[in-house]
């Protein structure tokens, strides 16, 4: 899809857009019948209109409960929840729900509706005419970066990540002033998840909704939230602050620990592959004398020769054993280049890639696609350590000096 086109389209419609709503939790408690303690205990916070509030906390701390109280899927035991100053208790539940976009934890697409019909659910309930619904569906598919031909498919013909986008599109359909999103990116691989988060942030810059977003992942919270609400077992709200505040001034030991483990991972997202001291690539061109090349390969963490073209772009790999048997760098029967990573990737992406690739050293490419260096799993995981000192970059097998 073209980003400018959708931005323009969104801008053109900004006037008719429902304004975002302010959400207030005021001393909210919830006790489930028969439960020993409260699932939510005297929780108060305010999400200003147009901001993203992320709820984080361990499993069972009451995040889903807090969301379901807002759209009255369940009823309050104590306190009040106000939307733009009006108590939700005074509202008719079904009407209220049609004004609040809700993405449930398990997606919950209707398996018997096409994607278009799924997205059109609330507009149909609101009695929009056919033309307007069609246009809205097309627009939303574009917004969540799904190709238009998906409209006629059924949910089970989509991947998990695509289904989650449909879930988000469906919640956005009637342009609600408030969105409740319960782990919308749970159960998705880290790379796709990262992309969905970026898209979400881009989208939010355009639509400026009030959003309550649940996650288990403090990194996601830091990345997505204008405000973070950290909760703990028993339904207590421990800290409600901006991400920067939470990282720098955790309210107590619990928050510090909760943020701490993941803060290491957060560090990984702040550094990029080119920030590391990469080992040189054992590279050579077709026809080079195999002898000296072999020595470089043997000295490298990468146990293979990278055959490159005149510009230094990789063409393929040759295993050390085969190279030893050849007199010149061969030009045929090369192994495929395989897994590579651009040097602008964060360490976290790099680590995820290495781990899916069986912990083999990662070939890093520069902006122009040339082989720039080799990064090992030890280097990447070393960057996780609290003191921030990266693991030694010296590969065990030899002298990094040898280079093309």
């Amino acid at each position, binding site marked *: 899809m073209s980003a400018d086109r959708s931005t323009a389209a969104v801008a053109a419609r900004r006037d008719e857009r429902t304004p975002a709503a302010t959400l207030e939790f005021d001393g909210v408690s919830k006790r489930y019948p028969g439960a020993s303690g409260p699932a939510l205990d005297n929780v108060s916070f305010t999400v200003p209109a147009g901001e993203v509030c992320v709820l984080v906390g361990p499993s069972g701390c009451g995040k889903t409960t807090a969301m379901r109280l807002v*759209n009255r*899927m369940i009823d309050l035991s104590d306190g009040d929840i106000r939307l733009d100053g009006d108590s939700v208790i005074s509202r008719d*539940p*079904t*009407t*209220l*729900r*049609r004004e609040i976009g*809700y993405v*449930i934890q*398990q*997606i*919950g*697409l*209707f*398996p*018997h*509706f*096409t994607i278009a019909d799924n997205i059109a*659910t*609330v507009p149909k*309930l609101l009695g929009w005419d056919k033309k307007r619904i069609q246009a809205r569906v097309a627009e939303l598919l574009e917004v969540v970066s799904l190709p238009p031909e998906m409209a006629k*498919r*059924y*949910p*089970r*013909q989509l991947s998990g990540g695509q289904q989650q986008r449909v879930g988000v599109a*469906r*919640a956005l359909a009637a342009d609600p002033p408030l969105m409740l999103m319960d782990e919308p990116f749970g159960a998705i691989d880290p790379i796709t998840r990262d992309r969905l988060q970026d898209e979400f942030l881009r989208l939010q810059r355009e639509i400026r909704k009030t959003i309550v977003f649940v996650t288990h992942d403090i990194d996601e919270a830091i990345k997505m939230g204008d405000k973070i609400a950290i909760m703990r077992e028993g339904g207590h709200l421990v800290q409600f602050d901006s991400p920067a505040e939470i990282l720098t001034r955790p309210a107590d030991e619990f928050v510090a620990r909760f943020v701490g483990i993941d803060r290491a991972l957060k560090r990984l997202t702040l550094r990029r592959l080119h920030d590391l001291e990469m080992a040189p690539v054992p590279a050579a061109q077709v026809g080079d004398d195999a002898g000296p090349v072999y020595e470089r390969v043997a000295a490298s963490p990468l146990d293979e020769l990278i055959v490159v073209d005149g510009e230094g772009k990789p063409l393929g790999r040759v295993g050390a054993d085969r190279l030893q048997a050849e007199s010149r760098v061969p030009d045929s029967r090369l192994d495929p280049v395989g897994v590579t990573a651009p040097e602008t990737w964060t360490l976290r992406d790099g680590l995820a890639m290495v781990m899916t690739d069986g912990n083999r050293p990662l070939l890093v490419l520069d902006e122009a696609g040339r082989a720039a260096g080799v990064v090992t799993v030890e280097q990447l995981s070393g960057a996780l350590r609290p003191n921030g000192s990266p693991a030694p970059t010296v590969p065990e097998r030899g002298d990094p000096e040898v280079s093309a």
Partner: protein
Amino acid sequence: MLAVPGAVLPNFGQTSSCVRNNGLFCWSWFSQHWSDTFGPAIGQHLVLTVIAVAIGFVIAMAASLVAYRLPWAGAGFNVVFTLVFTIPSIALFELLVPATGLTRTTAEIALTSYTLLVMFANFVTGLRGVSADVLEAAEGMGLTRGQRLRRVELPLAIPAIVAGIRVATVTVIGLVVVAAYVDNEGLGVPILQAIQNSSFKTELIAAAVLAVLLAWAVDALLVGSQWLLTPWLRSRRA
């Protein structure tokens, strides 16, 4: 016997040697009597079946909707329908005769009774089988109870509903044969007539085979209609 089958008995004296010797299947006799015996019998058989299944469907659907909301009521329906189901069919037919006579009404009351348990059990299972996530999403988007039922729960229960209708229909087609004892209609009539007629083989086989074919055809029709009704189930993953 309760009923005396009233159709014309085959005249042994004047017909082919096949019929005189009670051969296994006399094609000419069968084709002679297609239009006066078998054709109309198939029609009656179908009508009896459709009426019973239709009434049974309405009752079972109502009962299953109640049971879906009120589990204790479901247990009650289950006991009643199971009891009705275990009465041997011929006995139920006979028990009804004093009240409603040798009529189609008698046949339909009994036939309908036998459809209830199967359809009820399947409908309830189908409704209860709708995934909690989907229901949660539907409620969260502001569908009212009625809308959830019509747009989500019933459509998703279609496979189980059709399965119930299939079993009920095939069961009824079999029972309509027995119903010939109290209602002079359907393919049971030639069968009873043939049994009384020194087991006239051609008629026995023709009527029984037609009943089987009828059941298969109707079952295939129902399978086909389910296919048409559930497009989301036939799509392959792309």
